[in-house]
Every structure is written in structure tokens, then in C-alpha cells.
């Protein structure tokens, strides 16, 4: 059932993507481009989808490999994106300037580019990794790139001044995903998936806040 929902959602999104390539221009418009609202709509949908996948993959992994190992206690304070100071509650999220928040989102997305590529390949080596985990890893990587593209478009539209330098935090966790010791290696995966779930939720949440703020004037 869940898989079905997943497929349905992905199908929906893919269809949506298909539409992106040939936007319907209103008659007489010179700039045939999507409105900011449409851009946000799509970004939110995509972010929601990515987070959905991240949650699923994390849950599946935890259920299968992390039972009773106390990973959660070790996973504290070890996300590579932790150095990016992001809003931690509603007030902060509402107070931060929207351009800054957008740049933060970009930063987080960029920071995940690299680890997601490695995740998608390294996850294949996990012993008896189920197909559901494998395809989700690949799907998340692809969708993350799409979202990054979309966000760059939004930032380009919203940004008043110069675009900031590309902020992102590097990831050096690849060796840990290749550790010989199974317990350590599984923990490295656990931690990465845990952080992925967190960051994807952040992005989804920030985008929803931004959409309500910029498009609906805080009245969603």
C-alpha cells in the first residue's frame, strides 16, 4: 500500500515535471515563465516527496539494521550540515530574511549532493539490502538535484542583490560508509539517513513557511 502511494506520488510528480518543460503561456505574454507561486508549489511538492522518501528509507533501515543497537544515542550531533545555522523554531523561521532562508536551503541542498551520490552507490553493498531501500536512495539523489535546480530558479527570481557565494558544507563521511567493521559501517549509514531525514524535513518545512510568507502573506 505504501509502495503504491509512493509510486502514485512519484508519478504525479513526474507528470508535473513533464509539464515544466512546456509551460503554457498565457496569450500575449512575452516572458513565458512560471509564476513564483507555481515555482513554490512545485518546490514544496518535490521537497515533500523527498522527505517522504527519506523518512521511509530511514524507517526501513532502522527496522532492519538498527534494532537494539542504540544508534540514536551515538547519532547525536554528527550531521555534516550541522555547521549551517538554520532556524530551529517557528520564530526563527519567521524572523530570518527570506533571502537568507532561501540561501540556507540552497546550502543544505548542495551539501547533500555529494553524500547522496555516495549513498546511492554504497547502499548497494549493504548485506541483503532490500530493493525498496536501493531504489529510494537513487530516487532521492535524483529528486534532490531537481529540487536544487528549482530552488536556484526561485532564488534567481526572488534575490534582489547579488547571489551569494555557493555555501555548502563538505562531507567526508565516505570512508565511514566503507568501514570493514559492520557495526560501525551500519552506524555510519544510520547516521547519514538520520541526517537526511532531518534535513529533508527542514527544507520541506522552510519551503512551506516561505511559500505562505511570500505567496499568501502568512495566511495559508
Amino acid at each position, binding site marked *: 500500500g505504501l509502495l503504491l502511494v509512493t509510486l502514485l506520488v512519484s508519478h504525479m510528480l513526474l507528470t508535473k515535471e513533464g509539464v515544466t518543460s512546456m509551460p503554457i503561456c498565457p496569450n500575449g505574454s512575452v516572458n513565458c515563465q512560471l509564476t513564483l507561486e507555481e515555482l513554490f508549489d512545485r518546490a514544496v511538492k518535490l521537497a515533500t516527496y523527498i522527505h517522504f522518501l527519506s523518512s521511509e528509507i530511514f524507517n526501513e533501515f532502522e527496522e532492519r539494521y538498527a534494532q537494539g543497537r542504540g544508534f540514536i544515542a551515538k547519532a*547525536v550531533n554528527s550531521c555534516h550540515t*550541522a555547521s549551517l545555522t538554520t532556524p530551529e523554531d517557528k520564530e526563527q523561521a*519567521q524572523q530570518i530574511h527570506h533571502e537568507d532562508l532561501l540561501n540556507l536551503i540552497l546550502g543544505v541542498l548542495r551539501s547533500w549532493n555529494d553524500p547522496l551520490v555516495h549513498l546511492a552507490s554504497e547502499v548497494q553493498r549493504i548485506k541483503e539490502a532490500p530493493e525498496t531501500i536501493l531504489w529510494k536512495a537513487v530516487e532521492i539523489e535524483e529528486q534532490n538535484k531537481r529540487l536544487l535546480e528549482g530552488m536556484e530558479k526561485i532564488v534567481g527570481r526572488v534575490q534582489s542583490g547579488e547571489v551569494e557565494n555557493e555555501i555548502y558544507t563538505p562531507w567526508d563521511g565516505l570512508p565511514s560508509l566503507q568501514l570493514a567493521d559492520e557495526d560501525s559501517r551500519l552506524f555510519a549509514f544510520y547516521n547519514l539517513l538520520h541526517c537526511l531525514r532531518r534535513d529533508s*524535513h527542514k527544507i520541506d518545512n522552510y519551503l512551506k513557511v516561505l511559500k*505562505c510568507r511570500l505567496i499568501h502573506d502568512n495566511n495559508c
Partner: protein
Amino acid sequence: MKQRFISSAQIILQLALTTVGLTGQTYPGKPKIIRCRSLEKETFSCWWKPGSDGGLPNNYTLFYSKDSEEKIYECPDYLTSGPNSCYFDKNHTNPWTTYIITVMATNEIGSNSSDPQHVDITSIVQPDAPVNLSLETNTSANMSYLWAKWSPPPLADASSNLLVYHYELRLKPEEKEEWETVSVGMQTHYEVSSRQAGVKYVVQVRCMLDLGEWSEWSSERSIQIPKERLPPEKPTIIKCRSPEKETFTCWWKPATDGGLLTNHTLLYSKEGEEKVYECPDYKTAGPNSCYFDKKHTSFWTIYNITVRATNEMGSNVSDPHYVDVTYIVQPDPPVNITLELKKSIKRKPYLVLTWSPPPLADVRSGWLTLEYELRLKPEEGEEWETIFVGQQTQCKMFSLNPGKRYIVQIHCKPDHHGLWSEWSPEMYIEIPTDFRVKDMVVWIIVGVLSSLICLIMSWIMIMKGYRMMAFILPPVPGPKIKGIDTHLLETGKSEELLSALGCHGFPPTSDCEELLIEYLEVEDSEDQQLMPSHETPSKNTKIILKETDSDSGRGSCDSPSLLPVKCRESRGLPSTLQTQDVRAKEKKGGKGSWETQCTASEQKMLPCNSESLKSCTWLAAQLPGNQAAMFAYHSTVEAFRITLNTTNVNTSPVLVGNEENRQSLYPIAETVYDDLEKMSEMEYSKTDQTTVQVRQNQQNDKSPFLNPKLMDYVEVHKVRQDEEPTLLLKHKENSGKTKKSTVPGTSKEYTKVSTVVDHHILVLLPDQRTQNTPVSQEPVAETSQNPQDSQPEKSTGYSTTAPSDSRGDTGGSDYMDPSSFMPSFK
């Protein structure tokens, strides 16, 4: 010796008394010595149970003897130990002697003695239970002690206090069944160590002399061992919850406190910070809880929470609880739920549910997104129907059972993580029943009316009797085949024979086309004047005629009254409208304008002319997709079209009168030139006709409209001096100049004028013979060979064609089968 004596004496006594017993009053029953007991080895008592008293007052006497003496003594003291007992005091008790005791019951009639009891004092010793048990607890150095004290059993004789008892003590927690027994020794106190704190214990003691039996257990005493002075046990964190994704609260279960005052402290550290904080607010969320306000709540951060329980003896810490507030959001139930019953256009009621998010949840900022789920069931139902509605705050419910009361509840959940809220309070809604009742009433009325009609009908049937039967079921004429060419039959060339019988091939040959025109009157006058010639035009006809009468050409779609009809027609028969317009044009100008118009409109596939373009465009938009298919048909029957183009079909008034259904076809058939549907209709019309009028616009030079072959049979008469001359086709039987001409019977001359309709048309009748070309192929074969068909046969032909006509009229061109109209073109 002595025993023997006694027993023999008893036997004698019994024998003697048995005789006396016959009077009803007997000697007493045998008493029984129950027990003898010594409390302290120095005195003892014996008790007996009396036998039956024999109906008379009895005296009991206890005798005893000592094994060392022959002498028999009587009980020294009947009183001290109660009724039916004997107490032997110290003076009468010798521990070294065995006593032989007998009890004798005596009344007026006689006496009876118990069995003798041998008593050894040492073996019957059993003291009373100890008394004055008291319990104390003592706690020292984290150990709990239980201190029990008691007194030895009291004795009647104070001098015997020097006796030494052994004691035993047993105890158990109050709620348990099993006793724990402790041998105490000779002291009258005991200390039970390491008892469980906080448990209530029950204690009993008993005692025993150095010989004999244990006494009964003393009466119970119980005592609560006080809770010990221990550090508290581990508290447990039960759960943490955030109701609105802004603050959160954690609850814990306090540790067992050992009777001492215990303080609980919640400590937490946040991911990324070394520092350990204490709970900011213990009060807001009630006892044993900690409330984290907005300032203290961070998201995407793991809180490591512990609860420490402390008392004066020490402290204990719960297991750590790791919480990311993002995942523990559980909102309150939705509020402001309204249920509203609305009626759809079809008057079916449906339910509109609306609700608001819980007041705490700030969904406007986008920080929290809620999803809703509702459930409902009939009040008496068992199973809920659950419907997930996503982020909407309203929902419409259709197909609810009328007359039932429904219970509705809603709950909500954050979009990704978190838990469903509680269900909202139950809401009730009753779906009214009256809609169904109304329906029922309608159906009942319909039923009553129809049964009435049936009654009347059957009554009429009975009244009219036979005539009615004849009317409904006319006699079926036998088939007659005349005019088959015997020569052809003999030669056995089936193909030729078949072609003689009719045209079976497809596409039809020119012969078939010729067959189409049986009686032709070619005329170029105003069409509408053809119409009044029919004496009994149907309603449909009238409408269309009026339209065509008005020379505006508006007869198509503009007229609101006609719109439905037109639209229906236009779906199936786009060309009908077209030709009507055309005709109007023709009448107006009389010039060859309609040809271009027709082609133009045909290409457009819009059955309209310019004047009605607007409405027709609308119509065209509604044309179903089968139009293309329809036109495909057109192309296949190009040949027919040519023929038909030139024909206007009219039915002779006489025949028309029989079949009203047919009449509606006239205007259509008259004008159709490219529609299959109409062709089929026309074919029927024509086959039934005795007269066929062919209208020809002479000023139209288009050759397809005049089949050259047709012209062969046409005699043109100038009937009027109008600019539009009327052509009268005096033509012979269709087969007259074809191969079928070999059939002698078919060659006919049609010179008889049946009617002169108005002043434009001559209706020709063949000489008392009509061409009857029924639908199906075989009848065609028959009739084409047999023109002298009788009238009844013709009428059968009508009835068979009529249904097809009506079908064609209403059903559009969807189901046209070319083969079905084939034969009629012969």
C-alpha cells in the same frame, strides 16, 4: 477377666432393655468419649458426647480405673471443664498411670455405657495457644526488623507457671498464602530480620511442652513494616508530546519513594551542546511533568532527557530519553465541526462537513501543516468508515442512507511525522427520509393509473370482441410469386436469376439505381408547396414545413422552439438542415447558389448555412465523434446519392393515411441527398409509395443531380409558365429498360393522374398496381417479380418499415448497415 465380665453384663443388660424398648421409651444410647487432653501434664480433662436419650432425662456418670488397681472411681469434678466433661485435678492425675475411662448414661428404663477409653497422660498433652502476641518494627542501619513478643498460655492453676514451652512463629505478607515458619525456642520473643519494607506482615505463634502436641496457632497479629529509608528507584519517562509544534511537554512516572519525601528533577541536554539544563517549568503541565516553552523548544535537535529522583537516602536517574520534537507533534482534535445537509439538483441529500484546525495549531504560517481524517457510521452500526481528506477542512459525503442517524468524528495529524490527535467529540446528523417517501407516492400513483388503464383496455376488448382481434391481428396473406421467368429458372443461371429478382451486389449497379425511381415527378417548384399536398401531415412535418416556409433560412438552429429537434437531427443528420437551407435559398433566388452552399457546408460538416451559423457552430461543437464515420458512409454510397439528389419522395395521400409515422419523414426524405440515414428512410418511403416525385432544379446544371439514365424515363412537361418548370417523369416501371425487362409483369405505364396537388405537382398512380419493395431482400425479390401484390401485403410492408424509420429518425446514423438499405434501391 474383668473386661469379659463387663461385656457379658452389658449384653445381658441390653437384652433386658430391648424388651422394654418396645414400649417407645428406651434406655439411653451409647455415649462416646471424644477426647481427653492435658494442658500441662499435671491435670487433664475428658469430654464425651451423649448418645440418644431414649426419650427420658439421662444421668451421665464417668467411671475410671487405673491400670495399677482394680478399683473403679467416679469422676472427681464434672464442672470445671464444662458440660459433659470431667476434670481431673493434680491430685487425681498421675503421669505414670494409664487410666481406663467409661461413661455411663442412665435413665428410668436402664443405662448404657460407652466403650472404655485408655488414657496415657503424656500422650494427651496439648497446651493452649500462647497469648498477648505483640509486634514491633525496628529500623536500624537500613535494615528493617520485626520484633514479636507473647506470653505462655494461661493456666487455671497458677502453680504450674514453671512449665517450659517451646514456641514456633509463622509469618507472611498479608496478601500471600504461604506462611514462613520460624522455630523460636523457649523464649517468648523473636526478632525477624530483613523484612521487605512497606509490606504488611501477619504473625502467629504456637507452643508445645516437651512432650505432646503443638498448641493451636495463636490469634493473628499484623504489622506494617515501614517503608525503608532507601534511595528512590528509577523514575520512568512516559512520553513527550508537542501539541502545536512550538512547545512540548514530557511526563514521567515517579519512582517508589520508600516513604520518604522524594524530589524529581528533569535534566536535559541538547544536541550540539555540552551543557545540562534543568526543566524550565514543572508546573504548567501538572504534576510529574516538564513544560518546555517556545524559548526552550528547538526543532531538528535531539534532546537527551533524564529524570532524577532524590530523597535523603540518595537518588536514582531514569534511562535517557532521546527526543526530536519534530517527531512528537500530536495536535488537539479539530474544532468547530459543522454538519450541514444539502440537497443536490436531483434532490438527493448530501452532507457537507466543515471544521477548523485546533486553535493552538498555527497552520497559516506554514510552519505546521495538518492533515485530516474523518470517520462516520450509522448510529447502530458497528464499523466505522474512515475517510482521509488530506489538508482540506471540508468534505462532502454522498450516498448516505436516508432515514439513518450518523455519527461523525474527525481527527488530525501533522503532515509528515507525529501522531493522530484524539477523535473530536461525536457529532450526529440525521438523513431525512421524505425524499424516498415522495418517490414511493409517485410510484404508487403510476401503478394505480396503469392498472386502471389496463382494466379499461380489457373492458374495451371484451366489448369489441372479435373486431378488435381482427384489427390487431389482421389475416396474414399467403405469399404469391408471379412472374418468375421460367426460362431463366430453367437455364439455371443463378446469377441472372438473382439479378432478375433484385440487386444483391454491393455497390449496386445502375440497374439498382434505376429501381429507385419508380414513379417520378420531376419538378422545380417551391418545395413547401409539395408539403401541403399531403393531406395528413404529422406534427413533425408541420414544424419543419413552417421553417422551410419562412424564406429566411432560419429553420435550422436559431429557433428556440426547434432547437431541440434540430439538434437531435443535426447529430445524426447534418445534411438535413443543410438541405433545408438550401431549399430556402433555392426558392428565393432560384439560381444555382445552393450547389456551392451545399458543398461548402458539407465540407465543413456543419449542417448550417451562414444565417444560422452561430447556433450551428454551437451544435457542431456538440456533434459526437461519429460524424466522421458517417461521412465515410457517404463516400461509399456516392452512387446512391446521385440518384437521391434528384428525387423528392412523396407518399400518396391514401397510403400516408395509414401510417402516420411515415409522415414525419417526408420533409426529411424530400430533401436528403447525402445522408445515409435519410437514404434508408427514403428507401422505405419510396418502396411504399405509389408516387414518387423528383424535383429537379433546372437552372442547376450540375449533372450529378440528374441521372442521365433517369432521364431516359422522364417525359418533361411544362406545366406552368413559371420560371421553374415542372418536369413530369412519365416513366415506366424501373425494370422496364433493364435486363429485368424480361419480366413481363413489371413493365408498367404510369399515366394515370391520381391527384393534382395544388398547381405544381402531378401525382401519378400506376394502374391499380403499385410497386412494393419491402425491406428485406427476399421479399424484394418476390415483389419485384410480382407487381400485382395485393393491398394487405403492402400494408405489411409498411408495418415492417415503420419501426426502422422511427429508429433512423431518432437514433442518428450510428447503426446504419449498408446491407439493410441495399434491396430497396432495386
